[in-house]
């Protein structure tokens, strides 16, 4: 499930050091050329295949400039090399440039907010739990894993549909209780129990409207099961009444 985060949009703040004088107007003009689709080949020290590929840069903002140092904020597709962008900006400017510092400030749903913690915070929370028996801080520094898919359209299913999905079955229309509007065919969706527990990730096979109108058919093709089987009972066995 963490691999879903790896493929999400990223935001960075970085420091670019120019190797010569450039006026603000030219700087802005050249940086503008790197917004949108760009070509990139992964650097030597990378874990991916070094083929030329296209990546999307959503924006590059100049936050501050002090002589040859420029503070930039960049939003881009997963797998974009900021260092290479800075290097290429330097080439186009004619004077050369390199990246002095890089900080990722957003990775999909994870950003620099009150949930961002340091190792010390985790250590303190653990101590409080282990030595004092209080898990309140632990529950603050750790978030339920459902947090990682907050950006996906969501579908809520019946208790009776859960175990089948946990075994890898596709999600049929009768199993659905509620869902987000405007889901399109082929879109990645997250499937939840009525308690809000993440069951699986899948690809929509029908639109929201189709699902609302229909009373049968495969609504979602499950691609990744998150919840283990056995948490909810098998439907044919369960005679439990819902509250």
């Amino acid at each position, binding site marked *: 499930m*963490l691999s879903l*985060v790896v493929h999400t949009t990223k935001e960075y703040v970085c420091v670019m050091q120019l190797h010569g004088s450039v006026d603000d107007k030219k700087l802005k003009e050249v940086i503008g050329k790197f917004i949108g689709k760009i070509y990139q080949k992964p*650097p030597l*020290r990378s874990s991916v295949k070094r083929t030329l590929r296209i990546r999307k840069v959503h924006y590059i903002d100049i936050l501050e400039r002090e002589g040859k140092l420029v503070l930039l904020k960049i939003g881009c597709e997963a797998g974009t*090399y*900021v*260092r290479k962008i800075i290097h290429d900006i330097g080439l186009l400017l004619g004077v050369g440039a*390199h990246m002095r510092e*890089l900080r*990722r400030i957003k990775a*999909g*749903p*994870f*950003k*620099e907010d009150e*949930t*961002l*913690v*340091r*190792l010390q915070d*985790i*250590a303190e929370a*653990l101590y409080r739990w282990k030595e004092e028996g209080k*898990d309140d801080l*632990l*529950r603050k*520094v*750790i*978030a*339920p*894993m*459902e*947090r990682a898919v*907050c*950006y996906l359209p*969501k579908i*809520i299913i*019946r*208790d009776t549909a859960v175990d089948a999905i946990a075994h890898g079955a596709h999600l049929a229309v009768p199993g*659905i*209780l*509620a*869902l*987000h*509007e*405007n889901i399109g065919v082929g879109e990645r969706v997250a499937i*939840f*129990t*009525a*308690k*809000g*527990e993440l069951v699986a990730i899948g690809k929509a096979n029908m639109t*929201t409207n189709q*699902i*609302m109108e229909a009373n049968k058919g495969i609504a979602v093709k499950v691609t990744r099961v998150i919840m283990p089987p056995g948490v*909810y*009972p098998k439907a044919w066995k369960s005679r439990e*009444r*819902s*509250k």
Partner: protein
Amino acid sequence: MYNKGLEYLKELDKLCDFQSKFVIKADIETNEKYGYFPYGRPIEDYIRQGVINLDKPPGPTSHEVVAWIKKMFNLSKAGHGGTLEPPT
């Protein structure tokens, strides 16, 4: 209608600035006997099914930090959401 789960998902939507609204097809009901409301998971489950938004210090690698976390929490499985480009 059981609202706690739906309210939690709406809270998730807000966290990610996800604009769409929910449409209801049938009464949202669930049996308290099975599963847990995410915030209500018993602490061991809460930890094992949790994520940490960690501001990693610049020294150790992500891999090393994951190893530390596994040790601190006595976990057999843990992962991270990606590394930064290596410094030259």
